[in-house]
């Protein structure tokens, strides 16, 4: 009786301790029930719209388009959501689901802090207790977000094990969940981990491509030629891709954090430099050595600084439906500054990876082609770090 659920090609699965198995089975059953429940969906839609600020704008970046001189560029403005990133889409869904399941406490991992802030926000709104695990290194890089989470009533636990970054925060949140499942839901922030998380998170983020499609048909009367998003675990990317997977004429492009370059060890470009493995509950691509030891990855972006990628992305790569390109720190920082200067929009450094690739791609395309870039989050949180990258000594 092998569970074939939760596989994307060979990827995915449920590689987790036995202790957690009934918890993920319970979650899957609850999700399968509520996803078809009209009341649940009405409640979630109201939360997303009235509280989260959806639908997010699809903005025609006219100056950028003219400056690059090629394809027409639209920006999907997830940065305008409440809490400043796409993470709220998934969190409102999972928090509502957890509440329906009778859970009173949320735990979460966070890298840049956006998912942690979103979870802390939902917990505050729904009157739930919240504990966020964050790599100690990231608590320093993203001190402002640590303060925001505490302000929202959450406890932030710095994780000191391993590389003290996102992967260690995931490990620690999983360990905590193993010790307390009866009242606690693990609100996983990306399309990763054991089944059913990659499916649940994808479904909650798919609102991004659902809106892009409708907005694009309204504005241009046709589908875009390419949609571009940054990929760490891959939640905003899968949200951006999902409703276009069947539309073969739409190119799906994920931008991985190459750090100092894919020919160096200081990279987090999983598809470009990794190999298939089993970690954090899933089979997928991971940065690892030949003995399967997970590599200490690096990126300027705390949100993309993860050694794996969601299993559905791994499958989209395997079948050639989506393309995963590396973008370096330097290129991302330039794109961060470019978008600020050109359109008056400061993107998250994560999203700047997608902007950077679009800057390379757009000039190679005809003017009647259309690109959509998902701006997954806003860049306020990154200003101090980018200033330091440019040699200015600014501290929050």
């Amino acid at each position, binding site marked *: *009786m*092998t*569970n074939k659920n939760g596989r994307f090609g060979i990827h995915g*699965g*449920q*590689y*987790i*301790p*036995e*202790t*957690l*198995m*009934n*918890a993920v089975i319970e979650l899957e059953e609850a999700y399968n029930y509520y996803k078809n429940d009209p009341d649940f969906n009405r409640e979630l839609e109201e939360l997303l719209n009235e509280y989260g600020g959806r639908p997010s704008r699809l903005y025609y970046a006219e100056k950028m388009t003219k400056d690059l001189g090629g394809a027409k560029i639209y920006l999907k403005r997830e940065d305008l959501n409440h809490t400043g990133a796409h993470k709220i889409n998934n969190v409102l869904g999972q928090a509502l689901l957890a509440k329906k399941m009778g859970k009173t406490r949320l735990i979460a991992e966070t890298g840049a802090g956006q998912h942690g802030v979103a979870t802390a926000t939902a917990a505050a709104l729904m009157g739930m207790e919240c504990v966020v695990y964050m790599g100690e290194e990231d608590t320093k890089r993203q001190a402002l977000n640590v303060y925001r989470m505490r302000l929202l009533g959450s406890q932030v636990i710095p994780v000191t*094990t*391993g590389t003290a970054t996102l*992967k*260690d925060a995931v*490990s620690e949140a*999983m*360990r905590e969940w*193993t*010790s*307390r*499942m009866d009242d606690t839901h693990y609100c996983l922030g990306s399309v990763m981990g054991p089944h059913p998380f990659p499916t649940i998170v994808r479904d909650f983020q798919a609102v991004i491509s659902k809106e892009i499609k409708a907005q694009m048909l309204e504005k241009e009367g046709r589908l875009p030629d390419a949609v571009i998003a940054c990929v760490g675990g891959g939640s905003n990317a899968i949200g951006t891709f999902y409703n276009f997977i069947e539309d073969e004429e739409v190119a799906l492009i994920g931008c991985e954090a190459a750090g100092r370059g894919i020919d160096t060890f200081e990279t987090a470009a999983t598809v470009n430099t990794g*190999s*298939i*493995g*089993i*970690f*954090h*509950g899933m*089979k997928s691509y*991971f940065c*690892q050595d*030949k*003995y*399967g*030891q*997970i590599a200490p990855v690096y990126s300027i972006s705390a949100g993309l600084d993860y050694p794996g990628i969601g299993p559905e992305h791994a499958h989209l790569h395997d079948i050639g439906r989506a393309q995963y390109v590396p973008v370096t720190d330097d290129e991302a920082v330039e794109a961060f500054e470019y978008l600020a200067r050109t359109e008056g929009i400061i993107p998250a450094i994560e999203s700047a990876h997608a902007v950077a690739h679009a800057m390379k791609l757009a000039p190679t395309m005809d003017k009647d082609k259309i690109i959509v870039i998902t701006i997954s989050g806003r860049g306020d949180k990154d200003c101090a770090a980018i200033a330091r990258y440019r040699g200015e000594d600014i501290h929050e």
Partner: protein
Amino acid sequence: MSKIYQAFANKKAFIPFITCGDPNLETTKACVRAMAANGASLIELGIPFSDPTAEGSVIQGANIRALSNGITTDDVFTMVEELRADVTIPMVFMTYANVIFSYGPEAFMARCKAVGIDGVILPDLPYEEREEFLDVCSANDVDLISMIAPTSENRIAMIAREAKGFIYLVSSLGVTGTRSEITTDLGAIVKVIRENTDTPIGIGFGISTPEQAKKMAGLADAAIVGSAIIKLLEKHGKDAAKPIGAYVKTMADAVKE
């Protein structure tokens, strides 16, 4: 018949765990010999993994120390081969799925058979994913050990019926590490397991004292101890074999009383 059954033949068993290569493989070898000489019935050898998500801080530390010394899976196989010159009790590996997957499951299990490893325990390979390695395990006479947890409930019978070697019954929620008290109703879980299989049962997670070991082995067939041994390694480093041997004797005597 599985060689692992020898460890349980008509007696209560004591199963110590050690992370290979912490602080070096010479120490591991000396400790394994000391364990075998002092009444261990079966030894669990941990192959270090960078991100051991089922381990508490003590065993995490051992994994990191071993890896920072450059210990590889191949080094561990070589060490077992040397130990098998004189250590005859059953030995199993405890590691994570990725260590085997990246080595190549066929190559890994073939080497297990060649060097004399009798089973593998993989805390991140639940029943639903066992087919990942089950066939190559069987083909090489390596028992894929099943784990049952306090939360397994309706899954106990299903897991027990297909269990090989011994069943690793997890005593408590959470990760590995010593606990002052174990509150799970293990008797009720053991009862359901016994109704479904004759495969022996070892209880692990949180056990450190002779009293706990005696009680757990009394409830089941064996007590498994890891973190308490790693703490001795942490304290005594390269000189840990003697205190670990003495500790194993106390625990094994308590279990077999």
